[in-house]
């Protein structure tokens, strides 16, 4: 959490240099960030579908038990996607240290910065139709930034902690998972609680994804900057030259 907010996180006011063209672009999201975004999105979809099916399994299969491995398969896919998700998160964290300024945004929250809060409410007003025009941002707008920090940064950590603690129950007390995450059972002595919180965490993330995808599409159309293509090419294009 930085006390001093980097001006790069706030709205763009000055007209970018090299002015002649109507549109300017800035390179914002480096390849590793974009790659992580899409891998992570896919992992979350897979985790949510398989996770839901772990909680409420498909209708019973018949036949011989030896020929079937449906539930085992679903759980295997969940755990594989879980490793992708967890390792991806660590890789993204690493990139926050070595990547550009915008790679750090996800992991920092300019909580003590008044200007940032004012702009956050400004963005909220834009969504409530109280503002005629949104501000321009090179990185995430403050509202998106805050939601991403809480749901994705803290949320991922929560899902990894609860998920691996559940996983450790299966791998057993001799496993590294138990050594690393077994302490979670001190917080949830009855691991039914772990299941419930892990499950609720999924719904929080699903709510985020619904709003996030809607906002991405809407802003792509209505804001003054490119959105969806930015997460593909990394280039942020501004649609006008006004501050």
């Amino acid at each position, binding site marked *: 959490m930085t006390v001093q907010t980097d001006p790069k996180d706030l709205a763009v006011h000055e007209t970018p240099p090299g002015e002649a063209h109507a549109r300017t672009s800035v390179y914002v999201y480096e390849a590793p960030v974009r790659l992580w975004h899409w891998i992570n999105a896919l992992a979350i979809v897979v985790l949510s579908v398989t996770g839901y099916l772990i909680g409420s399994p498909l209708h*019973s*299969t018949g036949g011989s038990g030896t020929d079937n491995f449906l539930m085992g398969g679903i759980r295997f896919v969940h755990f594989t996607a879980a490793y992708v998700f967890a390792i991806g998160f660590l890789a993204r964290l690493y990139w926050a240290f070595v990547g550009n300024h915008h790679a750090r945004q996800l992991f920092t929250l300019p909580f003590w910065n008044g200007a940032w809060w004012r702009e956050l409410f400004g963005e909220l007003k834009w969504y409530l139709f109280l503002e005629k025009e949104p501000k321009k941002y090179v990185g995430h707008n403050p509202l998106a930034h805050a939601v991403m920090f809480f749901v994705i940064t803290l949320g991922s950590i929560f899902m990894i902690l609860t998920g691996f603690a559940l996983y450790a129950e299966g791998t057993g007390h001799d496993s590294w998972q138990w050594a690393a995450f077994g302490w979670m059972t001190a917080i949830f*002595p009855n691991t039914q609680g772990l299941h419930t919180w892990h499950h609720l965490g999924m719904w929080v993330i699903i709510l985020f994804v619904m709003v996030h995808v809607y906002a991405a599409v809407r802003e792509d159309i*209505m804001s003054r900057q490119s959105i969806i293509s930015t997460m593909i090419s990394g280039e942020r294009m501004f649609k006008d030259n006004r501050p």
Partner: protein
Amino acid sequence: MAALETFYDVIRRQGISRRSFLKFCSLAAASMGLPPAMAGRIAHAMETKPRIPVLWVHGLECTCCSESFIRSAHPLAKDVILSMISLDYDPVIMAAAGDQAEAALEDTIQRYKGNYILAVEGNPPLNEDGMFCIVGGKPFTEQLKHAAKDAMAVISWGSCASWGCVQAAHPNPTQATPVHKVITDKPVIKVPGCPPIAEVMTGVVTYMLTFGRLPELDRQGRPKMFYSQRIHDKCYRRPHFDAGQFVEEWDDEGARKGYCLYKMGCKGPTTYNACSTTRWNEGVSFPIQSGHGCIGCSEDGFWDKGSFYERLTDIKQFGIEANADKIGMTAAGVAGAAIATHAALSAVKRARAGKGENQ
């Protein structure tokens, strides 16, 4: 300190053959997961070590732990398990009563200071100065604290002593409190279960006698040898779970075929106990084998964790009956409707703006 008879002296006096005795030692070793050579060590300990004096006190409880204990499966148990320890005080099964019984308690505390084990069945209610459970004319809390003061270690028998169990279920009017929250300066061994399995109970005692120390405990204070795996990890219906073969309704085809009881609310996946390996009543059966899901009786607060017959735990904080999926789906529905409305309003705004700018 008075010379105590050994366990071996006692059983020989009771006419039990050496052969039977050695058999018991091998079985005890096996049940604790020790190598066969350890049977010799157990036998040696039983022959040479004085029996451990045990005080067995009863708080708020139903006596199912005692009922279980005296049914320990091995043939020797009914005669001998109770002789393995020197059970100096246990109001449920001792002949003495009243002042005489209380004197026995006092006598052991005085004579074996720091060398006896305090076994607690049930728990103390703390509300109203402990008036909800009176033993020998005084609140049980006082007897518990008094007896624990000079004990070597405390064993919390059953879910009552370990976690609180039914009398501590919401709203817990008597403020029934598990033993480790009242006795904080002694090692407390939790042997949860409602009741705990007899062989697990005798196993814990045998271990302490043999090795002269407490068994290794897990994070929750339970002996690792019996509580380090879930019912689900060793359940004989597990292949059906992995195959996705579930009982969908009581008495359906799956129930007859012995499919997995996960969808019927089985708590095996979150319950640490030895039922699926040791089983009950001389290894005859255990709940899942008889067609009913595990209810998680050895887990913390199992009475307050929703229905025994639902897979997803009830969440009561919302006043109405809910679980994670019901809450999540409701929230997602609301969010979806909000998004649709917002999108419609956005379209209107854009259309208006478009007209204004005449683009």
